């Protein structure tokens, strides 16, 4: 059932799982068998008169003491498997990881920005976790690793991958409509491949800078470029058209121009396009500069 572990934590986590499951299955099956045996052995037919045993001090002591010892053992294995997760070794590669509805993105110290991770094998990597909106959680089942991404929090995690390959990253904390599509991946590669990747040109060279910004900021998870309605209105052909919006609860008609686009990015809920839900988009005032908003607007103008 468990995926093949692929980080240094897997062993400790799996050991704690095996120990606790071992003890649990033993008791579950044992108690169930005894229970069924009693029901058959002392059925009314076989045992017409019952014996009233009120209890036994010795037994109460035994079945308090035994679980006490067992939970100490179980706690111990849980603790041992967990301690290394909080002790980041020196010299770990430090990457900034961002969660937002509904996308992960990563910023390498060298400045590379990606939406999936590439890391070298057998080297500690530390992620500083930042959320741009609500709580998310960074979960890598194959690494047995999870930590919430809390807005304004200072959460972090680290790992050291032990097997080359590509591993799923899932968001484990419910974060709204497309929570189950908030996926990413970690590719574990050799040192030399990692270095080659790190210095390679981004594949989006030659792309419109506005489009790059839309991709980086996950705008396109909610706004399509082809006219289809996802969470928010599509960008296709909207520039210059008129639209009914809701401002302070009142409907009014506006024309989509530079100013409206800028306002929608900085204060998305002020003029809400009719038919869309309030509160789903957060302000990007602190994320995007006016210059970048200009680039985005230029790009939207090209979507006819």
């Amino acid at each position: 059932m468990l995926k093949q572990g692929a980080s240094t934590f897997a062993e400790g986590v799996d050991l704690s799982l095996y120990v606790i499951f071992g003890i649990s299955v033993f008791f579950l099956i044992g108690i169930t068998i005894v229970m069924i045996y009693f029901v058959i052995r002392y059925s009314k037919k076989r045992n017409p008169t019952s014996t009233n045993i009120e209890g036994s001090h010795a037994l109460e002591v035994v079945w308090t003491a035994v679980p006490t010892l067992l939970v100490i053992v179980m706690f111990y294995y849980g603790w041992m498997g967990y301690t290394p997760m909080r002790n980041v070794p020196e010299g770990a590669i430090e990457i900034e990881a961002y969660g937002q509805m509904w996308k992960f993105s990563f910023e390498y110290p060298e400045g590379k920005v990606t939406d999936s991770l590439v890391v070298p094998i057998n080297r500690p990597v530390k992620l500083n976790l930042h959320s741009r909106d609500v709580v998310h959680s960074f979960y890598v089942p194959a690494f047995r690793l999870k930590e919430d991404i809390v807005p304004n929090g200072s959460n972090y995690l680290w790992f050291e991958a032990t097997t080359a390959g590509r591993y799923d990253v899932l968001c484990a904390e419910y974060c709204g409509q497309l929570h189950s599509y908030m996926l990413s991946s970690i590719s574990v590669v050799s040192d030399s491949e990692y270095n080659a990747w790190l210095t390679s040109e981004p594949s989006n060279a030659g792309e419109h800078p506005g489009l790059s910004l839309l991709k980086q900021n996950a705008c396109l998870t909610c706004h399509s470029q082809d006219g289809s309605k996802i969470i928010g209105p599509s960008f296709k052909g909207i520039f210059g058209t008129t639209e009914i919006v809701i401002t302070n609860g009142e409907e009014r008609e506006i024309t989509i121009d530079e100013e409206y686009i800028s306002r929608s990015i900085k204060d998305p809920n002020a003029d809400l396009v009719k038919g869309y839900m309030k509160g789903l988009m957060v302000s990007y005032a602190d994320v995007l500069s006016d210059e970048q908003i200009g680039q985005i607007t230029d790009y939207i103008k090209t979507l006819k």
Partner: protein
Amino acid sequence: MTSKAMSLSYLQGKNGIFSWIFSLDHKRIALLYLYSILTFFITGATLGVLMRLELLNPGKDLMEAQTYNQVFTMHGVIMIFLFIIPSIPAIFGNFFLPIMLGTDDVSFPRLNLLSWWIYIIGAIMALSTLLWGDGPADTGWTFYAPYSVKTGTNVTMSVLAAFVLGFATILTGLNFIVTIHRLRTPGMTFLKMPLFAWALYATSWIQLLATPIIGITLLMITAERVFGVGLFDPSIGGDPILYQHLFWIYSHPAVYIMALPAFGIISEILPTFANRTIFGYKAIAFSSLAIAFVGYFVWGHHMFTAGMSGTARIIFSVMTFLVAIPTSVKVFNWVATLYKGSINVQPPLLYALAFIFQFMIGGLTGVVLGALAADIHLHDTHFVVGHFHYVMFGGTGFALFGALHYWYPKMWGRMYNKLVANIAFVFLFIGFNMLYFPMLVLGLMGMPRRYYDYLPEFHVPNMISTYGSWILATGLLLMFGNLIAGAWRKREPIGRNYWKTGITLEWQTLSPPPVSNFDRMPVLPKNGPYDYDNKPEIEE
């Protein structure tokens, strides 16, 4: 006390709608609660079956992502606030606590009626979110901030509904505490109380002391949504982790509001059908109090990945493991109660045995989640969904079904078809385990919870789980159909003590009980409530 008026049953006499919805009789109020709670249970279960249908295959089967999110939130809110929290105390506690104590009503009958009305108002508020605006909340029943502050769905109303419902819980708790302290029949000391009364006593203290915390937390969410007061949303200066602490400070103890009354039911059913005294009366009684007490200090185990200090995580893990001890003591005593009994296998006993089995799975998977390393992998996955359904549904839900089958002849003076009851039980047992066991597997494989869609590798267990939900639904239909059909069956003589071996005081009165509960003074067994060696002779 044997005049005719005295033996008029609580179901006879005035029978207009107002004589029910304004009744001060604890038995009628119990039935009001019974019918409303079961209606919500069936609604919630329907939503559950719809969710399973959506998860049958990857991709869209039935509904959009947003609808799925609203459905699991509604399912969670209904099942937690409208079904499982009130369930056993409000139905069977109301009906049987006064009778088991040998008295004629709870201490405050008017508060009792008020609590039902508050419950109904809260329920209407919760369901009203379906009708306007962007529809019911899509936050999950936990209302985690800051998502709950940002989303446009009707979170404010859902949260206010839960706030109102809290008062119904508080009033019931208060009423039971006072009733237990003040109204026990002469000669019934605390240590001669039935174990169901003990379980309700421990539960009531949690209801009284923990519920106000969720009340204030939910009001804070409202203040934040409506007036923009920055409490939990960091973009207006709040702290999302503070919300999680406040929420779980209530909601973990609430787990014991759900579980302890069920323990009480099991402690009643077992002696009756084993026809012998309970094993370890004091151990069972006091372990309820121990669980209620320690249960206050374990809430952090819901937050092992949320970013608490390492020390806090370790303390909460240790405390969580401590709760396992009194809980396992109970299980051992129950099983020992079967030893050298003279066991009569009847539908209520089947439910009690299934309870023990399923509750053990729920408890043991809980222990897995209490271990730090294991929880890091399993937190917020389907393993948790499997775990809490094993506790709440396989445990408390099955105990409630057991109680229905156990006290049915007493409450209505009629009987259901036992063969159908047994068949329904088999469907429920198989369906339940087939529905939820695969979720434990899915969690180990790494499938998160609250997941509208999933990676193809998770397909097979999801399919099995959905098939299980169909078997379970069949079992529910059979069981409820059978219980309802009992109303039209030819009456058979029920007598006072239908199972012959019931020993607590409700088995000394008429079935159904008269308005004032007893037509003659109840007689206590000589040495404690389960003293089968000196079981009082009951004349019909």
